[in-house]
Structures are given as C-alpha cells and as structure tokens.
C-alpha cells in the first residue's frame, strides 16, 4: 500500500474507513515509521481541535463575542490601528478595568482558593489537555449531555459492521474522552504514535481516578480535619488564606508574632499576618510525626528560623506515592511568558527554586500542603502564600498568591522531574499569562 494521505489517516482515526481500507492502513502502519509520525500528528490535531472548539461552550451569555465583533477586529487590523480601542478585548479595556477593579481584587483571592478546592472539576481542567486528548474543561459540559451523546454514538456504532465497531469506538473516544464508555486499543504496533498513553478511558474513569487520588492524598485527613473543626470551631478562619483583605486585617489584631509551631496533642492554629498554618492533631495517622509547620513570621525571623528547621526530615512517608515523589526541592525552568511580563513588572511570584513541603495548612479541604522558596532562595515577599496538592495520580498543582495576583502551576510528576504549565494572573493589569514549566530535583540545602 502507498503511504496513506492525511485525509485517509483522519478517516481511520474517525473510524470512517471500510473494513478493507482499515486493515490495509493498519498493516501499513505496522511497518512504516513515517506514517506513524503522521498518525501521531493527526491525533494531536484532532485532540487540539476538540479542545479549541470546546472553548466555545458553556461560556456565560454575552461573553462570546458576536461574529460582527470579529468583523470589527479584522477591519481594525486591516486599517492599522485605527479602531484599536474598539477591537481590544473587553477585559483589556481601561474603563472596564477601572470599573471592575476593586471587586475583582477582593473576589480574586477568594475565588482562587475556592477553585483550588474543587479537584474533580477544576483539577482536571488544568491538567495538560493534550495528553488527555480533549479539553478537560469541557468534561463538565460533556457529562451533562453524555446520555444523549452516548445514545447517538451507540446508535451509530450499531449501524456499523461488527469488524469496524471497535475502531469506530476508538476514533470516537479520541475526539472526546467522554463520548464513549470503552476505548478499545488498536493493535500494539499502532500504540507507539499514541500521544496519550494514559488518556482516560472515559469521564467516569477520570472522575474516579481523580477521586481516588484525592482520597489517597487526603482521605486520612478527613478525620483529622473533622477533629479540627469540632474541637476548635471558633478558631477555624474563613478560607481566605490567600490574604483576603478583610481576613488579613482581622487576623493581624490577635496574632502572636513569629510563632513556630511544634507538635501538639490537639490542633493548634496560629494566625499571623493573615495566614494560617496548623499542625494537625497528633492522632492523625498522616501527620503525627510530620515536620513541624512554621507559622508565618516576618521574613527576617523566618529566615533566622529556617536553617534549624530545614534539617528536620519527615521520619516516615506521609502521603500518596505522588505526594511523596513530588515533595522536596525543585529547580524550575520557565519558558518565556506569554504575554510577556513587562520589564517593570517585578512581581513574578514563581521562585526559581521551590520547596514542596508535606506540612499542611488549616484551610486544607483538598490535601493542600505548603510551598515555599527553597532554603537558599529569598523568602516570599510579605503577603505571599503558597500551597500545593495532588490533583490526580502523578499530577500536582501549586498555587502561589498574593491578594492581587496568583500563579498556578499544574505539573506532571516524573521520576525526578516535573513538567507542566504555569498560569499567572494579575489583578493589576487583569491579564493571564502562561508559560511552560519544567523542573528537576535539587537537594534542599540550607545555607550557612
């Protein structure tokens, strides 16, 4: 057989070929590396197209610009910068920023923290979309219509000849993981080009995995969290640990300064400059022997306290395999941010070296643990907080936030590396930036 053209490859992936054509292309692909690469590319394009189109779904009415709007944009571009203001996306217009400024800033930190506690939905939505073969953000939308779609797919598959059913199912799955319930694997020879070896078979499986990972990571904690709530309900602060303005102000008034927390038989909570750290009850299986947490102290004090504490190692595993592989110190390599940071913008939140600690914060509804700059790095600026947690097997997300900007980094955990995407949102210029991030493990060394 000749090399199949792109249309035929897409047809094969879509399960649209006749059984004869299918077996011809499959036997060709088994031996042709060149076409293997073409198949991989086609799979990537299919997944990317699905993801892009899903961005058009479920957006609040009025946010999706009308076709006319883009006619304006094109006209403006053609005419140079003539109507630049009109063409500028809504969220970048100065008037809009001014009008929305304060509320946004207040809502932001709250929303960020809140978002981070909804792992089944949000956890998947930041997971590397390409490796999942679809935009996970669409999953919620998809699932609401899964029944309808499933029926349609079943009806279609029922109409296909038996020999091609499996392949049709495969193609269907790749174009949207929620569309089918089964994902038959093509013959082994064809798996090589598959860019998403761990793509979830379906929505149900994905949700279950996320849930399992969450349980594995934080399940033990459910009890201790309940203990925190029941034994010290009045001490549990509102969830605005990112430095919600009001919460911070209230906390400051009764905060002991620079407390360093040790193990305690009952949950103890230190409120310091708007931040809350805790050591959970000693009866918690997971944290009974864990490294003591550091209450948020003034930077100088924290630096002074740090060397002594850095040497304390957690004596036994205290988390899921993903947690244990991810904890420790990492050197981050960040690609160019897009859009770029301006040279005047000094407030990038991502330190060059970070430490993912096992310590938990008290606003720990989803296995949140603490992130901070690695020992040799400058400490976080005052008003900055960092948390990380496992969002799925081999996937973590860390969030570093002030009250006006935040950065989340979603990363896949490898043996001694991390890789993923960082998103930096600034409430100041109201702009989301992205960058690719990779990390390699470094020793958590304390400076003399």
């Amino acid at each position, binding site marked *: 057989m000749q090399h199949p053209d792109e*249309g035929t490859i897409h047809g094969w992936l879509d399960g649209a070929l006749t059984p004869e054509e299918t077996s011809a292309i499959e036997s060709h692909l088994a031996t042709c590396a060149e076409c293997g690469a073409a198949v991989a590319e086609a799979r990537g394009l299919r997944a990317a197209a699905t993801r892009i189109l899903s961005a058009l779904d479920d957006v609040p009415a009025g946010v999706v610009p009308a076709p006319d709007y883009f006619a304006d944009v094109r006209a403006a571009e053609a005419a140079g910068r003539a109507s630049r203001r009109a063409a500028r*996306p*809504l969220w970048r217009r100065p008037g809009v920023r001014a009008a929305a400024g304060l509320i946004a800033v207040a809502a932001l930190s709250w929303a960020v923290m809140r978002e981070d506690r909804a792992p089944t939905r949000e956890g998947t939505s930041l997971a590397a979309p390409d490796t999942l073969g679809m935009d996970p953000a669409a999953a919620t939308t998809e699932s609401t219509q899964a029944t309808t779609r499933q029926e349609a797919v079943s009806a279609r598959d029922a109409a296909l000849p038996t020999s091609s059913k499996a392949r049709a199912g495969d193609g269907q799955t790749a174009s949207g993981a929620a569309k089918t319930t089964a994902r038959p694997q093509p013959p082994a020879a064809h798996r090589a080009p598959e860019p998403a070896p761990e793509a979830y078979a379906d929505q149900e499986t994905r949700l279950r995995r996320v849930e399992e990972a969450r349980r594995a990571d934080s399940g033990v904690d459910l009890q201790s969290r309940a203990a925190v709530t029941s034994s010290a309900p009045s001490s549990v602060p509102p969830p605005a640990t990112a430095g919600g303005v009001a919460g911070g102000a209230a906390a400051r008034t009764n905060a002991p300064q620079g407390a360093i927390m040790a193990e305690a038989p009952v949950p103890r909570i230190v409120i310091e400059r708007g931040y809350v750290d805790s050591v959970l009850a000693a009866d918690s299986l997971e944290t009974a022997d864990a490294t003591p947490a550091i209450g948020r102290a003034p930077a100088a004090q924290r630096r002074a306290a740090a060397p002594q504490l850095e040497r304390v190692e957690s004596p036994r595993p205290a988390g899921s395999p993903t947690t244990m592989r991810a904890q420790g110190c990492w050197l981050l390599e960040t690609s160019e941010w897009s859009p770029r940071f301006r040279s005047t913008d000094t407030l990038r939140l991502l330190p060059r070296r970070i430490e993912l600690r096992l310590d938990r914060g008290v606003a720990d509804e989803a296995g949140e643990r603490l992130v901070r700059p690695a020992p040799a790095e400058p400490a976080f600026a005052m008003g900055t907080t960092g948390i990380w947690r496992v969002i799925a097997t081999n996937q973590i997300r860390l969030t570093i936030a002030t009250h006006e900007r935040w950065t989340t980094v979603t990363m896949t955990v490898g043996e001694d590396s991390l890789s993923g995407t960082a998103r930096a949102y600034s409430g100041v210029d109201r702009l989301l930036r992205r960058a690719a991030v990779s990390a390699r493990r470094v020793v958590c060394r304390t400076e003399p």
Partner: protein
Amino acid sequence: MDAAERLFRTYHATLVRYLTRRLGDRDWAEEVAQETFVRALRQREIVNERAWLFTVANNLVRDEARQDSRRRRHLTLLREEARAQELAEPEPTSLERAQEAAIARRAVEALTERDRLALLMREEGLDYPEIASALGLSVGSIGTTLSRARKRLVEAYEALQRRAGDGHAAS
C-alpha cells in the same frame, strides 16, 4: 415516550451545542434548534434523523442570516447589556475562559464555511456519510475536509494566541 419526544431528547443538546459553536450565540442557537424540531414534527418520515436535523438547522441558519440582519443587531445590543451586567462581578475563570473563547471563535471564523461545518458536525458525532449528506459532498472527500479543517483551526488558533501575546508585549 413518543417519537417527537425521543427525537428531542436524543438530539436537542447536541444540536444546540453545534449551533452555539457555529453562531456564537446561545439564544439564537436555541431558537434555530426549536424551529428545526418543529419542522421535524411536521415531517412524516425521516430516514437519517441526525443528518436531517443538522441539514435543516444549517438551512435555517443560512436563510435567517440572509434575511434577518436586523434581529442580529438587536441581539448584539442585548449582548452588550449582558456584558455590562457581568462586568459588575468579574471572576478570573470567566475572564480567562472568555479570552480563550474569543481566540477560539476567531480561529473558527478563519475556516471556510465548508470546513467549519464539517468539523463542527463531526464534533457532535456525525459520521462521514451524515456529514457528506448534510453538506452535499461526497463521502470520500470528508476525511480530507476534516484533516484540513483541523489543521487550519489549530494553526489559526496558535497564530492568534501568539499575536495576542505579542500585541500585549508591544503595548
């Protein structure tokens, strides 16, 4: 469940999503979908329901686009109002999503009509013969159409993302 109800339950969601993606306007999409189902009820017999529904919806959109630009202007005005209301309570996820949606919308608009419709119908699970029938193309050309559509969509999207980034860096 009677035939009409079954038809509606089976295809309404997918048709509305298809139309929303195509038109960028949920209300308009709902209207077209409704009219499509009304016509389906009048039809005595439909051989391939899904292909029939998508074909009729496509025709309705085309007819409507031809004759009813006034109503679209009105919708644009309503949209502006809705925007103004939403700006009272912005949240980061909606901003981010709106940005992504805007770029995705432009990328979709960059496709030719035929490529766009083929791709959007495929995303709703229509098979090649159904797409061919709805667009009046030969089945053999659908694979090529889809591969071209996907490639151009992704390229356009990436180019727009880059341009958005450069535009900001320059400003």
